[in-house]
Every structure is written in C-alpha cells, then in structure tokens.
C-alpha cells in the first residue's frame, strides 16, 4: 500500500452494479503500486471531515473516484488542503475528464501513474472553490467588477462566470489562460433569442475578464456552481491563482514539457472533441 495515496469513492460505487468496475480499478492500482487508504462518501458523512482526516494521517495525493458530481462534492474545500488531487471518472460522460484529458474508466489509472501535475487557478464564490463555472440563467443580476464598474443586462439574460471552461451544456471545452483570472459572459435576452445557438456570433455575447467581483441582485439569485446550486442575493467571486495541484492527462499539459503544445497554446487554445465547435 502506498501511504501517500488516498482514495475517495462516491456513495454510488457501493452499488452491486459497479462491483466489477471497482474491482478492475483496484486491481489496476495494485499493479501500479498505487493502492492506498479508501474513504467512502455517504449521505450523513461530511466529505470535508473525511478528507481532512486523511490529510492529517499523511495523505499527500488524494484521488477522487466516481463521476463529475463526486468531484463537485469535495472540490469546494480541496485547494485549502495543499495536497495533489487526481480524478478517476469511473462513470461517464465526464466533462471534467474531457477537459483534463482524463479517460473514463479504469484507463484513467494511466493518468494517475503518469503523474503530470498542473498547478491551476480556481474560482471562489464566497467561501467555496469552483473549478469550471458559475452560471445564472434568466437574471437581471449585476456584476460589480473590482469596485470599478458595474455591468448588467438591460433586459435580463444569462450570466456565466468561468474559471476554466463551460460545464456540461456548452459544446466548447476551453483551456484556461492562467493570467486572465475569471471570464464573465453575459448572453443578453435580446441576443439569446436570436436564431439557433450555434449560429450566433461570438460577439453577440458580452465577454469581460476580471479577478474579483461581486454578483448581486434585488431578487434572489440561484447560481449553479460546478454541479451544485447555491442561492442568495449577493456573492463575492474571485480568482485564486495557482492554488490547486491537479493530475492531468498528457494532452492537457500546456507548459514546461512540449514545445508544439506551447506554441499552439499561444495561438489559441480552444479544443473540442465534439463535432460542433464554435458558436
């Protein structure tokens, strides 16, 4: 057993239907000498207490096993723990897996054993970290950017604050530019009604870059953060630079190893495996 490694299994992996996948995973991890302590998420067990206990016991690398929802359950506090995090999306589809070039299923063990660690920025909404984006639909909410200016849709619209990529609904997977911080996208009501989404031009949407801001509204805001929903009247949003060490797939890594990839990244780093690319 590798004492530096610990694993968080999602609750649903206890079902009999996943016995075979879990057994195959554990066999593979044993082959690579990566087996470690296993903690299981459960309905009345705090994920934060579970992970903090593991870190206290010497865990240096925590591997999340499950699906994107599993990662979402622990993502909100992980950057504060100063550990390296890996992800095995045992069940697909996985937008996060695709974003970081991590294959679904047991094949993700190859990524873990390769151990290409990237230190990435995370977003923070109030006291919770997020990896991908905050989305608010049909809103008149205003975004105050660093106390300098306020931006809002005049007749309502959808608002997205992206740290790294669109989550599930968008066909685009976008690599982050780490110096940019957060990216706010507002699809105003007038533009969101116009034609088919894939025929809309990019400049139909408002797009600004910022590091810190406040999202507020007179009406309650229901915001989807990664894969969970939070509600309130006012949220502080910020970009936290290079605070999350994440094990990524080989194609994901953009700096330090591969010159052609760096060159491509300097040009434009959009990538998509799906047929529909840009809107």
């Amino acid at each position, binding site marked *: 057993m590798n004492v530096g490694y610990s694993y968080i299994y999602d609750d649903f992996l206890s079902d009999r239907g996943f016995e075979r996948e879990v057994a195959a995973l554990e066999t593979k991890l044993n082959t690579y000498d990566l087996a470690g302590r296993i903690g299981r998420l459960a309905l009345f067990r705090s994920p934060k207490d579970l992970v903090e206990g593991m870190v206290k016991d010497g865990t240096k690398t925590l591997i999340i096993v499950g699906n994107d929802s599993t990662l979402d359950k622990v993502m909100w506090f992980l950057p504060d723990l100063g550990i390296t995090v890996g992800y095995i999306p045992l069940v697909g589809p996985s937008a996060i897996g695709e974003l970081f070039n991590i294959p679904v299923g047991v094949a993700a063990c190859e990524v873990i054993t390769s151990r290409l660690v990237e230190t990435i920025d995370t977003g923070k909404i109030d006291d919770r970290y997020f990896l991908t984006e905050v989305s608010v639909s049909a809103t008149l909410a205003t975004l105050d950017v660093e106390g*300098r*200016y*306020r*931006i*809002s*849709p*005049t*007749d309502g*619209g959808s608002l997205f604050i992206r740290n790294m990529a669109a989550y599930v609904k968008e066909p685009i997977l976008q*690599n982050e*530019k780490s*110096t*940019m911080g957060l*990216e706010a996208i*507002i699809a*105003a*009501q*007038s*533009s969101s009604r116009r034609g088919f989404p894939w025929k809309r*031009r*990019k*400049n*139909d*949407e*408002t*797009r*600004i*870059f910022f590091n810190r801001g406040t999202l507020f509204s007179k009406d309650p805001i229901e915001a989807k953060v990664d894969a969970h929903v939070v509600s309130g009247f006012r949220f502080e949003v910020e970009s936290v630079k290079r605070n999350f060490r994440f094990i990524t797939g080989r*194609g994901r890594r953009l700096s330090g190893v591969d010159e*052609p*990839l760096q060159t*491509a*990244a*300097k*040009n*434009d*780093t*959009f*990538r*998509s495996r799906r047929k529909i*690319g*840009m*809107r």
Partner: protein
Amino acid sequence: MSMFSTKRFEEEGAVSPYGENGVGTTIIAHGVRVEGDFTSKGDVQIEGDVQGHVETGGMLTVGPQAKLTADVRAESAVIAGSLEGNLTVASHLDLKATAKVVGDVTCETASIESGASLNGKVAIGTASAPKSTAKTRVDRVQVEDEETEQ
C-alpha cells in the same frame, strides 16, 4: 494533427476571444449596460451602453448600435456608434459614416468617412499631449469623402 488547432477559427469564421498578445478581447454586446470606470489592457469592442469612463491599451471598436456617455482613452479606435464625451486616441482614429461624436477629440492620425458627425474641438497629431489644444494638422487627415473624389 495537433489537438490545439486554430484551424477551426479560420474555417468557421469564428472570432477568437484572445488577442495576439494573449490578452482577451473584451466585448460589451448589445443589451448590456456598463457604468463606471471601465479599463482593459487588450482590445475592447462595444455594442452596448456605457456610462462613465473607458480606457484601453489596445484597440477600441464602437459598433453602430453602441451608445457611450463617457470619456474615452484608447491606443487606437474605430467609432461607428454614438459617443458623448472626450475622445483621446494615442495613434489612429477611424470615424465611420455612422459615427456621432459630441466632445473633444485628440489623436495622432485620423480618417473620417463621409457622413460621420463630429461636434467638438479636434486636435490631430497631438495625442502624446492630450491636454494641449494645438492647431489641427489637416495634412494628416484622410477624409474619405465620395463627393470630393468625384
């Protein structure tokens, strides 16, 4: 084939949100209002409403539907919409036929299309000293006036 390809942009005519220097192009689209001091290092494209102050180290593009009530500073600018406020451009200013500018304009060089409306003091060739209202150097203005050409 590289996973990170720019070919998709060229093929589909999509607009990359990132400029040549890696700084994103800021877009204020139609149906969005901005109030306050709006600053950006990269290019800025405005199609919506802006009140306050706009400053960019890159190129400012003001679309025909845009309404700005703001003092504006930019490295270069293409104005096709409505602007109320002083406009200071470090290099080249391009006023399109649909442009309506009410305010003082300072720039290094300028081209003004026929039909553009400009109401205010104009200082061309003095962008490095925007406070000065030196005489206009007409020889640097490229007026693209169809009637004149005929």
